[in-house]
């Protein structure tokens, strides 16, 4: 239950519109412990949009889940029971989402996902009150698979940690790659030494490497890989090549291709404004997560413009219309309320002293999710 900050959106604005109904939004995200950088970016992106909008009658409650599922559940309980929020959002990790989302929607609260979007919630477990604004978990891996195919790789080596998101990752890659593999391995979650895996890659005769290793795991792998003398092209989902992480990886990441549905050089007006605004306010480049936070806030604001949150049917329809300017350009919802969007391939580059990404192509156009048919909505 760490750091509960009350950030009244229009705190400085006059209280003249006292008659207007208050809308309460609860943001549960990771602000301390491992992975805090992701949650901080989600929060900052979200709050940027709220501030730019500047409307009254909106209250955002932010709380830190410490990346612990039981803490997240407790915060959700507090927000629902005590603060009586209307909308929940902000969770970074799939396991925390699985702990919070089903019971929150069962209690009649909207949940807007800023990142985690596990397969269960896109398929059989889809729910009218649940929207994923980011993606479906498999999407970015699918993009890497599609890229591998289009590049004509015939023998990639693929690896991910041995946990559900890791399995989804490799399955997602294989779904769009469809060819032969030089090897497929699962590493330990939290593993920091990849010498053994790199030796296997070296011995496997692979022509490319796909990996999904979020957070510190990816940093370790890339540094060790760069030093190993194995010189195969590397690709992965955007998570391991994101703004916050790249600086710690350094040169080792240069040239790596990664699948992403956003990049700071995406050419649209909303994105240009977002990148500039974020840099001005926080003095750093925005990350993927900041972009999701920003889009989520804007989606929510657009729905609040046309519907009252207490009228669930109307509000749901307003959300599903997705009538907002996404920093990703094209954006609409499929029937399972997950996005249909283009997924790009980025390359890690260096701009001055800063490591960042540049779009080099589109991997899949108008991608929805693999589980949409399992959803009965």
């Amino acid at each position, binding site marked *: 239950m760490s750091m509960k900050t009350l950030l009244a959106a229009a705190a400085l604005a006059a209280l003249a519109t006292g008659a207007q109904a208050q809308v309460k939004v609860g943001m549960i995200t990771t602000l301390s412990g491992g992975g805090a950088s992701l949650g901080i970016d989600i929060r900052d992106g979200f709050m940027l949009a709220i501030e730019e909008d500047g409307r009254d009658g909106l209250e955002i409650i932010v709380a830190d889940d410490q990346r612990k599922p039981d803490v997240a559940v407790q915060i959700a309980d507090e927000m629902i029971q005590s603060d009586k929020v209307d909308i929940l959002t902000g969770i970074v990790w799939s396991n925390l989402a699985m702990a919070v989302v089903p019971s929150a929607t069962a209690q009649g609260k909207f949940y807007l996902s800023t990142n985690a979007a596990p397969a269960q919630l896109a398929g059989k477990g889809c729910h009218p009150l649940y929207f994923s604004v980011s993606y479906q978990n498999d999407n970015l891996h699918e993009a890497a698979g599609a890229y591998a195919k289009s590049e004509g790789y015939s023998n990639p080596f693929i690896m991910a940690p041995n946990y*559900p998101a890791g399995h989804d990752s490799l399955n997602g890659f294989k779904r769009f790659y469809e060819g032969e593999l030089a090897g497929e391995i*699962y590493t330990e979650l939290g593993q920091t030494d990849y010498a053994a895996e790199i030796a296997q890659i070296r011995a496997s005769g692979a022509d490319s490497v796909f990996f999904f290793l979020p957070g510190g795991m990816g940093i370790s792998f890339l540094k060790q890989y760069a030093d190993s003398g194995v010189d195969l092209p590397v690709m992965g989902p955007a998570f391991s090549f994101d703004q916050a992480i790249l600086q710690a990886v350094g040169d080792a990441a240069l040239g790596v291709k990664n699948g992403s549905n956003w990049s700071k050089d995406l050419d649209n007006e909303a994105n240009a404004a977002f990148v500039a605004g974020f840099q001005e306010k926080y003095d750093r480049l925005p990350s993927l997560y900041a972009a999701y936070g920003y889009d989520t806030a804007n989606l929510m604001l657009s729905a609040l413009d046309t519907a009252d949150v207490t009228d669930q049917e109307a509000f749901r329809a307003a959300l599903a219309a997705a009538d907002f300017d996404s920093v990703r350009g094209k954006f609409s919802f499929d029937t399972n309320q997950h996005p249909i969007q283009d997924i790009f391939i980025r390359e890690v580059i260096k701009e001055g002293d800063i490591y960042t990404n540049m779009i080099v192509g589109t991997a899949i156009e108008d991608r929805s999710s693999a589980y949409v048919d399992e959803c009965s909505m």
Partner: protein
Amino acid sequence: MTREAAVNAVILLLLVAVPGWALYADEPFTITLATRAVIFALAAVGLNIALGLGGLVSLGHAVYFGLGGYAMGVLASHAQNYTPLMEWPFVIEGTKSMPVIWLTAIVVSAIAALLIGLLALRTSGVYFIMITLAFGQMIYFFAISWPAYGGEDGLSIYVRNGFPGLNTLVPIQFYGLCLALLLIVLLFSALLARSPFGLALNAARQVPHRVETVGLDPVRLKLVALVISGAITGLAGALFADLNRFVSPTMLSWQMSGEIMVFVIIGGVARLFGPVAGAVIFVLLEHLLGGISEYWQVFLGIVLLLIVLSGKGGVIGMLAGRGRAHD
């Protein structure tokens, strides 16, 4: 009435009065917090039997807490999906009934404690601490990477399990259930300390070689204490999973083991109500300090350090003076 008994009575009164007030003031979240404290207390009462009576510094009690949680998660998820647990050689169905889940949690954690105890009790002292910690880590890694029951993602149960005659979805009713279990276990724990077994265990902690020369086996006494201790912590784990309607490997992590031990120490080792006081204070600190700073664990660490270094025997020791709880 001794001072310790008075302190215990005050704690007991608070456990009844605060949720009562919360019910009246319509603050359901306070009840949820109190439930959390009561469940943590139950886990710590379990550890206190190994730690306080048996002198077994188990840094792996998260194993039993987590297994209890998974007993709930596995049974309830099978019931939720209408798939049997196993079909051969005979069919076992999942269940949403709390009593069955509790019994399973108790049995499973007791078996785990027996196996870990058989190995760990071949040693003593620091070896025992390190080994319990290491086995905890082993099970944690296994739970994360074993794909069948959600791995790292854990298992989500959409509706809280049921207890005959109660609506467990109502916070105060679930709280009452947890409190009743805590009181039963406290009573059992008090009886145990005074029983012949408790006497022998108490001596096995202090002078194991003496216990042997009267023809008793100190290792077997400690093993039984560990099994009882693990079973109680497992029960707490099942309740915790039901409180969150969710179970994940986090419940098995070594930090969890550390926290359960922290509850016991803050309150006072070998004090009947020590674990209860400790758990209540921990949940309060977590809630209050957490509201002040993102880095609240620094302050938690300092508070903990001061309590240990003061050597006063935890909060109950400070309030009620030195001396063990049971003479």
